[in-house]
């Protein structure tokens, strides 16, 4: 039996069933059945609550895998929470339910595989974690490993291992060098744990959080910068909850750092007439509230920056959040195509985002399209404009 904390229980009943979340949900957009919508899931939860505010284990087992699929067919984009009539923290509820499902062992096969992988190899790719720094050799980046530094650059699994976006790590490093930042990489970075939190594997995530915090704090760094919104969420918001204490360092996303460099004059980017649009990553924009900073950076590059349909807090997911790519790749692909279409219809030259996963997904989609656009990360755009890449 799992006791739902009081506030979440109130939330489940407070859900007005008004359906504002239904139409917004990128998953429902393609699946179309009520049970796949946030509203449908909230109603289902109400129905599987037994007496005394407990999720009824028996009912969960009875509904089994189909129930679990409803909660894992979700990008965790947070649009449902954004439009909620009664301001229910739906992301919190979805996390809690995944936790329960994981505890009960009713999760999709791919989730079990993923969490085993991360547990064993400390990264999401089942790679030898000592090869995490290989991107340095591949890209020829100029990187220091120091025992202590002001800033730690937390690269993240996707940027470290995925060839398509290793250029983001190269860009961030070159920019940190360019402004003479006293920075270092971690000697033994582990997965941030965000994929495990999304899997519901909280205990396992805690182990990773503990290790990473220990590693970062051992450098005496005051700030940690990451280019990955998932890592940012983990380091900034999930770690304090997982560890029960606030780590001693400040966490910044690379777009925030770049924006302070630019506004303080530390970084001067030559303006050009390149036309750009920007895709707000859900975890960066809507969920973490970092919407202004990437735009400050973009506006330093060009005056012809075009907002796409749905931006800022209203931005639509690229399909790769919430582990959907692992659980339901074809659905993730459809969502990516829809979002890519909106971005491409701005008729700009380059699509920019500030997340390795979004960039990877949208760039991949672009390759399947006729006249696919170039999709790059914000840090790469800046490094290129300055001539560092």
């Amino acid at each position, binding site marked *: 039996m799992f006791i739902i904390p009081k506030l979440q229980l*109130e939330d489940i*009943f407070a859900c007005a*069933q*008004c*359906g*504002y979340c239904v*139409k917004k949900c990128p998953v429902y957009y393609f699946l179309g059945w009520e049970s796949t919508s946030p509203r449908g899931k909230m109603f289902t939860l109400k129905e599987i609550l037994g007496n005394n505010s407990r999720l009824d284990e028996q009912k969960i087992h009875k509904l089994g895998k189909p*129930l679990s699929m*409803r909660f894992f067919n979700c990008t965790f984009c947070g649009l449902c929470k954004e439009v909620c009539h009664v301001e229910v923290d739906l992301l919190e509820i979805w996390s809690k339910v995944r936790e329960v499902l994981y505890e009960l062992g009713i999760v999709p096969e791919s989730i079990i595989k993923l969490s085993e992988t991360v547990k064993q190899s400390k990264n999401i790719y089942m790679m030898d974690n000592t090869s995490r720094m290989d991107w340095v050799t591949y890209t020829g980046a100029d990187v220091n490993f120091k025992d202590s530094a002001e800033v730690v650059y937390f690269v993240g699994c996707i940027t470290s291992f995925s060839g398509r976006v290793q250029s983001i790590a190269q860009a961030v490093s070159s920019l940190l060098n360019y402004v003479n930042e006293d920075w270092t990489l971690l000697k033994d970075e582990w997965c941030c744990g965000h994929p495990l939190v999304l899997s519901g594997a909280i205990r396992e995530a805690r182990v990773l959080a503990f290790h990473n915090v220990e590693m970062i704090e051992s450098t005496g760094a005051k700030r940690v910068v990451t280019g990955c919104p998932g890592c940012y969420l983990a380091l900034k918001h999930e770690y304090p909850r997982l560890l029960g204490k606030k780590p001693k360092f400040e966490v910044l996303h690379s777009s925030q750092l770049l924006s302070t460099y630019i506004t303080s004059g530390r970084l001067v980017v030559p303006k050009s007439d390149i036309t750009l649009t920007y895709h707000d990553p859900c975890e960066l924009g809507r969920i973490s509230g970092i919407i202004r900073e990437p735009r400050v950076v973009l506006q330093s590059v060009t005056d012809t920056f075009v907002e796409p349909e749905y931006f800022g807090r209203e931005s639509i997911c690229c399909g790769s959040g919430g582990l959907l790519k692992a659980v339901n790749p074809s659905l993730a692909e459809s969502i990516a195509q829809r979002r890519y279409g909106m971005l491409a219809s701005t008729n700009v030259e380059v699509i920019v985002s500030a997340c390795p996963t979004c960039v990877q997904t949208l760039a991949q989609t672009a390759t399947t399209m006729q006249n696919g656009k170039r999709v790059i990360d914000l840090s790469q755009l800046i490094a290129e404009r300055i001539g560092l890449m």
Partner: protein
Amino acid sequence: MTTSDKFLSELINRLGQEYVSVDSLEKLVYAHDFAALPKFVKLLFNTTPDVIVRPKSTEHVTEIMKLANEYKIPVIPRGSATWGFGGTVPVKGGIILDLTGLNRIIHLDEKNGLLTVECGVVWEDVIRFLRKTCWELPTYPSSALSSTVGGWAATGGIGYGSLKYGPFVKNVVKVTAVLPDGRVIVVDDNSDPSLSQLFGSEGILCVFTELTLKMVPKNEAEMPFMANFSNFANALMAAQEVLRLTRPHSLVLRTFGFVRTKDYVESDAYFFGCFNDNRRDVYEQYLKLDSIVNRYRGYLVPEDEARREWEERFYTLRIKKWGPSILGNEFIIPVHKILDMVRYCWQLGNQAHLDVEVEVMFISKDEALMFPLFLCDERKPIRYLMSAAIAKKVLDVAIKVGGRPYGYGLWNFPFMEIAEPEKKRELERMKSTLDSQNLLNPGKTIGAEVMLGLPLPGKLYSTFMDGVWVLRKVI
């Protein structure tokens, strides 16, 4: 093969597997609408559908209706299920016809401002689509972020903009509808049946599949307003004067937050709305509003605050989280009876120990749509059931003072005989002509049926609810 198996396989054959579901989770979530059902309802009705279908075209709907006729299976049309009167709740199983897949914006006649859409289009999409044009919607419901165009045609059709441009029915020129026997007809003001006969028929006479809506040219200026008052009576008098002296797009009056019945004497209130016209007219109307608000000792809030309230206009149920459940009813009432009615709602709230909030949306100088909301807690089933009778109590009095229910569906059906007997006769006549097998949304609006098709007499239902109300005092 049983009949239902045969029916299902034929349904899948004709439509395709991807449009049909018998999944048990799906059945669970399609068994209700916006309102939380008291548990006893499940004893009376079979609210679980047998199958859910998501048609993609008018032809699909026709196929489904024909098949339903062949196998004598009820069909329950469903938009976004945001109507709280039980219209989309099955009473004896059947087919849920989820119409949200019919969601294309078909054509905008730019010259004449006529927009043709499929019935499952959500209002917000229409509003978004029109942003790029020189037209706008005359009227839309406050549930515009989720409800469908077809759903509003089937129900009340009063919302923002109705004060200035009239109800939805006055802003539609033509619809395509599928009749219970599967025939497709195009309906306008001069056809038989006519638009006004089918509009508001709550899904018991036809399924609307396509609608052609009248647009209005975009106005030069739009000016939201909001005024606070220290008591409801003053706010109401001011609102009446605003109606007399200006031409607002919308005017909504509300009690402030919800009224704690325990310690409250007279609630604060506010109204908000919007002027839209040419710049000069808007300005002049705003000046008039200013002096009216002053006269009634109100306070006109700054423009940005008023704009924020206007932008929040779709979020009318924010307070639900304090319930966490709500009970209520909606009715149209003469404007001069609003104060009496509000006071009665407060009195009822007091008796039942439920906090109450009241919203009044003006439809004209003489009539308003009133929506009292009682906060309660469905997790206490006995108390919730007892309190549910409050919805009937409110309506009893509203009808006595010259009002009428804003919808009937499953919960208000006994009131049609009292409030609108002629309308009921007309609907009964049309129902027997168009749907002799009683397959389209049976057991709603003009009469209810419990399990096994047994009729539920309105009187019995009313007496039961009255009994529950009395019992509440005892318990």
